[in-house]
């Protein structure tokens, strides 16, 4: 059985099912991270002392990671745009770069984490670090999730391009929306944790 509006848009809403679905999902993600940011504010305002982020965390590394993630968002858009221009080869290059940049972000994060652990800084040390590890940890899970989906569309999922190119482009667009959201969360996390 065919579900209507998976590929073509419904005329009165102007949207496909997938597009509405991904935006609703992102709305719930906003509530998830929103609750964590709200918790950050409550715990920070309730505590007598609070360390400056840059006295514990490595700002240059995080700046590098910010640039990496923003670049990956650019390549993500380019990947989708290549599909829209019918250039499957460039699509693979751009989407592959997006996944690789996600990998670079994780590697940098791995060095940051292990450096903290070596210096005896754990989530249980204080609430600043508890929030740091929880927020960045959850964000990393989202990065990994986005990478898995993108890797799928780079590899086995790309078969759909041959049979239904428009549907495939829509899927890449939706996966891109998620990837931009993950990027955006980091853009809030970076100043909140490292700079303030």
């Amino acid at each position, binding site marked *: *059985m*065919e*579900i*209507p*509006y998976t590929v*073509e848009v*419904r*005329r009165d*809403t102007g*949207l496909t*099912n997938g597009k*509405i*679905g991904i935006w*609703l*999902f992102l*709305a*719930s*993600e906003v*509530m*998830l*991270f*929103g*609750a*964590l940011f*709200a*918790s950050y504010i*409550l*715990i920070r305002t*309730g*505590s007598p002392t609070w360390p400056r982020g840059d006295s514990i965390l490595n700002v240059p590394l995080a700046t590098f990671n910010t640039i990496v993630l923003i670049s990956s968002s650019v390549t993500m858009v380019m990947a989708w745009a290549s599909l829209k221009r019918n250039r499957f080869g460039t699509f693979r290059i751009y989407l592959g770069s997006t996944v690789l940049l996600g990998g670079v972000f994780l590697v940098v994060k791995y060095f940051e984490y292990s450096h903290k652990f070596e210096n005896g800084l*754990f*989530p*249980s*040390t*204080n*609430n600043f670090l*508890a929030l740091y*590890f*929880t927020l960045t940890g*959850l964000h990393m899970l989202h990065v990994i999730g986005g990478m898995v989906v993108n890797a799928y569309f780079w590899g086995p999922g790309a078969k759909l391009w041959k049979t239904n190119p428009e549907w495939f482009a829509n899927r890449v667009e939706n996966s891109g929306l998620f990837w931009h959201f993950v990027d955006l969360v980091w853009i809030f996390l970076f100043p909140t944790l490292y700079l303030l």
Partner: protein
Amino acid sequence: MSQTTGTVAAPGAHASHDAHHEELGFLRKYVFSTDHKVIGIQYAVTGLLFLFFGFSLMMLMRYQLAYPGAALPLIGKLLGESRMPGGIMLPDFYNELGAMHGTIMVFLGVVPLAVGGFGNFVLPLQIGAPDMAFPKINMVSYQCFFLGGVTMLASFFVPGGAAQSGWTSYAPLAVIASQGQTFWLIGMIFLITSSLLGAVNFITTTIQLRAKGLTFMRFPFFVWAQFVTSFLLLLAFPPLEAAGIMQLMDRLAGTSFFLPSGLVVSGQVVANAGGGNPLLWQHLFWFLAHPEVYVLILPAMGIVAEIIANNTRKPLWGYKPMVYSLIFLGFMSFIVWAHHMFMTGMGTAMAAFFQTTTMIISIPSVVILTALILSLWGGSIRYNTPMLFALGFLPMFGIGGLTGLPLGLNVTDIPLHDTYYVIAHFHYVVAPGTIFGLFAGIYYWYPKATGRKMNETLGKIHFWGSLICMNVIFMPMFKLGLAGVSRRLFDGGATYGFAQPVLHLNVVSSWGAWIMALFQLPFIFNFFWSIRHGEKTGDNPWEATTIEWSAPSPPPHGNFVHAPQAYRGPYEYSVPGAAKGFAPQFEA
């Protein structure tokens, strides 16, 4: 876009898919099905089983409350020495039962039945859709729910038993509790994932897959109720997920999100970093759990509205104000949560704000209830089983709602907080309220799911027995609560002097609960017996007007033989001058 894309695949294509459907094996058809009707039935049956299980936990507790310290014959021995040595219940086990009764009834019983069951089965049919917008995600949603349920059940068998900190899992108590609490948190994360996937699916389906001509103001009220409910699930659950992650971190990684500095447990200062905020848990929990109350009640209101319109043979009185009230109610439910926290010392400014919003939110509920009652006026009412349950819902929900007003005001809440009055209040809303609505729905849509009606006589025994017993159980609790008996006492107040004059009411409540269990037997029998032996019915046995009744009973995979179309509003009954007593939405 062609003419037919408004709804479903062309009939020709449909037939070939039917043939394909026949080839599906047992597992694909009934276990790993992507058909919204099968998933709806899976949800409903699992939800009913959990409701019965949660009720059984309560029946055990009621024995301890009625006869504190007495050995429970037979069953007491079966539960083992670690829980009930010599058949006498240990306080820890009582706490497990209390916490798990609440958790199971809310998250594994009522919500899966109301949203997962009725939402999945009825909503796509009512809007004339061939299936949900994302059938595979729908299947995964049920599987997540099932895993969450298994995790919760497994927690009874870990060392230290299941969660014991109440269904609210307040910190710091829950943080320092035994291992069962970790299972509770992991189970909740599964359940939250399940409801997130369900909510995305419901909203997308409602917006995208409604039949041609079915504008929003032509939606049956049930569709509106599910639509608003889905938004509550979508936006209110993630903060609890965040809170659950933080509590898991507190328990497993040694953080102090919810542990204050200098916390003393059993005379020892806890060696944690400290600086956490126990109130933060309550805020995040109730940010979910207050909208959750409306998740429990709105689908039931939707069901009751359908059945009342159908059996009064009249349009709903005030359909539009009801819809606007529903949307307003959904919106307001996000800003009333701290009325559960008047006793926490969060401050009078906060209390003033939240008691004001609480009083405001009672207005739309009253509008809906009033509209439903006025809908009865002048109707030639058919008293069949679904209608009896729907009519039972009205006064029971009314009692529950009105007794909530003193709890919503700061000053009157303080003496009533955490007493049996609160238990009586919200059980009137959920048990004889919501659950009656859900029973009504089961009797009403059973012919659509099976092609047969449930037995009316057994249904009436079920209704009258349940109605009387529900009141025998919960009415005395108002008096217990007003006398000041706390809801948390494992002996029901036996050790307190002031509770002595009302203690006999515990016995009344308990016998009410056990007798009510007997009155569920006709329902259980009827539910299974009618699958094969119920009275055969056509596609539209209730002479209803909404689109689901244009599909064959039971509907095939893909639902409709021809793509349905909506020509008019949902409740055109007894239209003056019309040839028939009712004008279905789907007939030109």
